[in-house]
């Protein structure tokens, strides 16, 4: 339903039947890949958020806030600068960037006493700002014309959607959701405590590797296709948990679904609010997400 509404609404309103040739072109070449990509990006980010939260025992863990998205953004940017002709370099380097950022935050946040909320959020802030400064340095040093639109993209931008980007994120979000759902029972134990999980038979280090790897894959492909759309991984799993409880076997797949709906709707607002001009979709999600973050932080 959301899909149909999102496809038909826009700066040009389209009926779903009796389309003129131009309207059909808008629908199939521009709007449909964009909406489909939005859905996959939303699913990827929400699933990555939900599983990182369970793994790190922290409902505030979120790809954007942990700097994972920025890692992916930097990777994408490097690929764009150095391997422009080779389009597959973007998601690959985005994945690498996301993985390195995840690892860095995890190493910084853990201490002998374990991991607490403040440490994790602080490590995320440090990694995020550090990577941001590198990104800003790159944009100012490099050829301005080539990097035009990059700031827009950094905030999350779906306007460059193509079917290629969609296929890749579709593959990643499908694999990610299935594999992470398969780890959901182990994540239920890890969510309660790492030591408890070890005691009751979870191979903790293996689950951690799987979650970090797949979260990086999901965030990497999503960011390579659409920039850093923030807060999706925070809001969506939170709402899902409010609705159906904490069992990750439900939370992970439901987050995929709800994340898809959320980003499609946010993108719908982004391109219709001040049509024919567009807002970056990340600005919309952040507008909703930041208050939710503060609410969660206060409640913690």
């Amino acid at each position, binding site marked *: 339903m959301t899909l149909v509404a999102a496809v038909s609404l826009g700066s040009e309103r389209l009926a779903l039947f009796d389309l003129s040739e131009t309207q059909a072109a808008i629908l199939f070449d521009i709007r449909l890949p964009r909406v489909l990509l939005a859905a996959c990006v939303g699913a990827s980010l929400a699933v990555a958020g939900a599983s990182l939260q*369970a793994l790190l*025992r*922290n*409902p505030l863990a979120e790809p954007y806030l942990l700097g994972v998205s920025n890692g992916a953004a930097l990777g994408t940017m490097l690929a764009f600068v150095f391997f422009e002709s080779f389009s597959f370099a973007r998601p690959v380097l985005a994945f690498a960037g996301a993985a390195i950022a995840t690892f860095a935050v995890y190493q910084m946040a853990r201490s002998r006493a374990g991991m607490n*909320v403040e440490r994790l959020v602080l490590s995320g802030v440090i990694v995020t700002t550090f990577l941001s400064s590198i990104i800003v340095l790159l944009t100012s040093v490099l050829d301005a014309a080539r990097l035009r639109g990059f700031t827009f993209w950094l905030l999350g931008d779906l306007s460059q959607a193509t079917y290629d980007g969609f296929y890749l994120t579709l593959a990643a979000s499908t694999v990610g959701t299935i594999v992470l759902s*398969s*780890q*959901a*029972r*182990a994540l*239920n*134990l890890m*969510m*309660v*405590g790492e*030591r*408890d999980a*070890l*005691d*009751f*038979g*979870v*191979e*903790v280090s293996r689950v951690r590797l799987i979650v970090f790897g797949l979260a990086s894959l999901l965030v990497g492909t999503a960011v390579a296709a659409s920039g850093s759309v923030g807060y999706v991984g925070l809001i969506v799993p939170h709402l899902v*948990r409010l609705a159906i*409880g*904490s*069992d990750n*076997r439900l939370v992970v797949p439901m987050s995929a679904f709800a994340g898809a709906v959320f980003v499609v709707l946010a993108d719908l607002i982004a391109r219709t609010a001040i049509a024919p001009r567009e807002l970056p979709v990340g600005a919309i999600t952040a507008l909703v997400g930041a208050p939710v973050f503060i609410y969660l932080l206060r409640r*913690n």
Partner: protein
Amino acid sequence: MLEVRDISIKYGAGDVVRGVTFELGEGEIIALLGPNGAGKTTLVRSLNGTIPITSGEIELDGVPLRSVSRRDIARKVAVVAQENETTFPVTVLEYVLAGRFANGSAFGWETTEDIAIAKDVLQDCDLDEYASRLMNELSGGERQRVVLARALATDARVLLLDEPTANLDLAHQAMMFQLVRRRCRDANGSAIVITHDLNLAAEFADRVMLLRGGEVFAFGKPKDVLTESNLNEVYNVQVLLDANPASGKVRVTTVY
């Protein structure tokens, strides 16, 4: 069931546990006593492999512990420790069902049998009304009983309990030990219990191990270990000993 041979555990600079040897037999309850920092928790943690030993050997049913997978260890050894608070809204039933993890498929859902077992232990632990309550809404003592229920929900024959009665009222302290005793008797289980309550240890344990500075100071029947001179030397307090009029077991009274 569990054989411990000359194990030592290094943690940072020095040995936390040094040269500990003992065997836990079927149906047996061993109480682990000793002042704070004596290495009790570290020793118990090593028995299910969650803290690595530096030297020595631990065998579980005749197999070296380090060659057994986490899942297979969890099927045989269950832990009751202090609960760390959860930020997520987890229900009591969900928490207890975690105890069935090692028995089912790691990916799937609990079976109706798993749920029946969980409900049974909730009843045993006086928690039948609590199944759908949230963990972070319970009192410390109620949570402690849920933690016990989770361990009892496993099929494990060895129970490791780290101060299981710390937050419990008198009635539930007795309940806890009766449940552990019953499991040792009916299911050929055995248990190692860390406690600071010398009288509970004397009452319920078959053998008592007194640890000091990571080493075994005394090990044997409660009446042989809980002597005035041993307790005076290990805890540096004066005690009076007599017999519990109900059970005839040794009773310790501290002199302040």
